[in-house]
């Protein structure tokens, strides 16, 4: 039993003692008081009847005077007993109700419920610490992709918010201080099916603490941390934190991708399920205005400078943020007034980035700039998820939403890390390659958001293929992409990427044989993976796909599914 339960039992002592003593006095008194029978002779109540009488008197039920009408002495004692026992009851009940509502006790019960829920999770799950904007978006997208999540946050209000969300899977939540190792253990950090811990708690030092505790408690678990400061990030890296995410670097890279390689950006949003595979944006070349030179502005400025794009910086408080080095053009001001924008040369500029950490200012900057120069290419930074409606109505060319970008990136790291490697490889081979992909994939799969999945050839994901490979049979990529209903037809899916040992292959060759340990990234029309799994899981289906020998109708069963 936990110490809290002992403490509560101890607190129950006083009310129970009061009740016992009140009853004892009342019962004894009833026995001692002389009564008068109908025939005038004296009688005394026995203990049984006295207990009966006191029981219904103390609870204010009151059946009356039995077995004979009371004498004056008995009534006198009954009056005293009523006040004695009824008050004792009120006191005891009040105390017990207060104990049940006790915050510590409720926390104990909440922890028990949480631990039971975590124990009952048999599928792999992730622990998300910190349910802020990013945490909320991350949990939502993970759960929508069928992944189990456990959430810990210090803030009760945020936890209540989660309870109000209509999520397709049950998400166990606990409101507790995550920097306590016990809380992490309760969240299932040491369970074999715990795959990763995502630290999104507010302060950087808390995340650092989480990362180090997680690595010590269970070195096998992947740890993904948000860190906004370089020194903390270095500290995290020193003990093998798997991924350290700098939010400002992430947003600025994403925004830079949108401006610099629009095809790659379209591919990225399409594959991550954030947009249709439409015509890529065409950001103009020329002078850009960057409003806000905070951490985000600096990260973006560095990237723009590296590409040799002419940039004018507008910053309201340069004494705090500092100016860019060298002979860069800078204007002091908020950017929300026409004067500042004119001074920065808004009429000759081709594009403007409203990148301050205030949504109202960002919208105001864009509206003012739009009046001065209607042809501007507009990029807005959206800080708060709740402002989505405003940005949607205003409709700038590009909206970068901090928390969504961060949440998407973490989800990819957790669920399909190969997709990130694929995108990096495409970025590396240049914008032309990205254009080929957008055109090619769009023609093959249509423009709707695709299903992306990652498998690794082995006993876990693909037992049938692993068995065939052990039997020295040749299994090609094309084989597993065939339809199990008719092997002459292909599933509406494409293999995007192959990772084998240290090699990384873009669009791997369909005729090449697979090997155990290969990791593959597929992308296809929604629902294709469910069909592809038949061949990966069941030997007779795989035989049909490879050799085309007509087999008996497949028994439709769910056995062998993982």
């Amino acid at each position: 039993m936990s110490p809290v339960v002992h403490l509560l039992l101890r607190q129950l002592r006083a009310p129970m003692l009061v009740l016992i003593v009140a009853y004892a006095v009342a019962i004894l008194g009833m026995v001692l008081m002389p009564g008068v029978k109908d025939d005038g002779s004296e009688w005394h109540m026995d203990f049984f009847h006295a207990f009966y009488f006191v029981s219904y008197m103390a609870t204010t039920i009151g059946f009356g005077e039995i077995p004979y009408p009371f004498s004056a002495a008995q009534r006198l004692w009954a009056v005293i007993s009523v006040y004695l026992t009824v008050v004792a009851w009120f006191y005891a009940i009040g105390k017990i109700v207060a104990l049940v509502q006790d915050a510590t006790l409720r926390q104990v019960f909440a922890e028990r419920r949480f631990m039971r829920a975590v124990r009952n999770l048999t599928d792999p799950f992730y622990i998300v610490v910190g349910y802020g904007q990013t945490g909320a978006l991350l949990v939502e997208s993970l759960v929508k992709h069928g992944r189990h999540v456990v959430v810990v946050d210090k803030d009760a209000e945020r936890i209540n918010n989660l309870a109000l969300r209509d999520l397709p899977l049950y998400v166990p939540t606990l409101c507790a201080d995550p920097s306590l190792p016990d809380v992490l253990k309760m969240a299932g950090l040491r369970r074999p099916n715990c795959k990763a811990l995502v630290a999104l708690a507010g302060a950087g030092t808390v995340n650092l603490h989480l990362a180090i505790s997680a690595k010590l408690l269970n070195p096998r678990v992947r740890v993904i941390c948000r860190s906004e400061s370089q020194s903390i990030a270095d500290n995290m890296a020193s003990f093998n934190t798997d991924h350290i995410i700098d939010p400002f670097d992430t947003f600025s890279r994403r925004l830079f991708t949108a401006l610099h390689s629009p095809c790659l950006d379209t591919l990225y949003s399409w594959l991550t399920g954030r947009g249709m595979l439409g015509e890529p944006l065409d950001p103009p070349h020329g002078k850009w205005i960057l409003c806000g030179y905070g951490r985000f502005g600096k990260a973006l400025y560095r990237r723009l400078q590296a590409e040799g794009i002419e940039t004018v910086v507008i910053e309201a408080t340069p004494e705090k943020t500092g100016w860019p080095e060298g002979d860069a053009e800078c204007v002091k001001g908020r950017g929300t007034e026409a004067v500042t924008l004119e001074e920065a040369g808004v009429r000759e500029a081709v594009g403007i980035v409203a990148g301050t950490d205030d949504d109202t200012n960002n919208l105001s900057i864009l509206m003012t700039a739009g009046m001065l120069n209607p042809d501007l290419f507009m990029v807005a930074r959206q800080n708060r998820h709740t402002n989505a409606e405003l940005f949607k109505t205003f409709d700038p060319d590009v909206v970068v939403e901090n928390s969504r970008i961060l949440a998407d990136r973490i989800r990819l790291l957790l669920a399909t890390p190969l997709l990130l490697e694929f995108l990096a490889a495409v970025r590396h081979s240049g914008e032309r390659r990205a254009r080929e992909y957008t055109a090619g994939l769009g023609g093959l799969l249509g423009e709707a958001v695709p299903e992306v999945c990652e498998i690794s050839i082995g006993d876990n994901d693909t037992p049938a293929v692993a068995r065939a490979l052990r039997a020295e049979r040749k299994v090609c990529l094309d084989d597993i992409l065939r339809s199990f209903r008719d092997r002459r037809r292909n599933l509406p899916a494409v293999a995007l990427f192959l990772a084998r040992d240290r090699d990384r292959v873009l669009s791997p060759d369909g005729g090449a044989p697979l090997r155990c340990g290969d990791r593959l990234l597929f992308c296809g029309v929604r629902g294709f993976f469910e069909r592809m799994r038949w061949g990966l899981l069941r030997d007779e289906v795989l035989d049909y796909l490879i050799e085309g020998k007509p087999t008996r109708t497949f028994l439709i069963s769910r056995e062998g599914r993982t």
Partner: protein
Amino acid sequence: MNPAKVAFGFFIVLAMTLNFGFFIGDIDNPDHHHVYELFAAIVVNLIATVLKLGERSHIGATLLASSLVADLQLVAGAVIWGIAEHVSGIGLTPGVTASIVSLAGGAMLANIVSVVLLVIDTVMLNR
């Protein structure tokens, strides 16, 4: 001196002595076993039980268990008494008295265990 310990020890020993007082006498003679004494024994036993609630030590848990045993036996005796007198109406025959007193005897054993445990606890404390 810890006043809580005084009350604790007082009620445990009083529970045993009252229980003994009720138990002593011819086992089947109702005149030797007074109902007031049984009532007092039950009340004091209940108080002793409540005082042991929430003890965290192992000896505290054992004390609570032995006390619950005593309560159970005494209450069972009281229920038999009530049934014999009022429900079945056979009154305190030697047989009924014997079963009530033997139940109280069992309760006394449990109370003796309580007192022994209390003594052990005190001795251990002094070391």
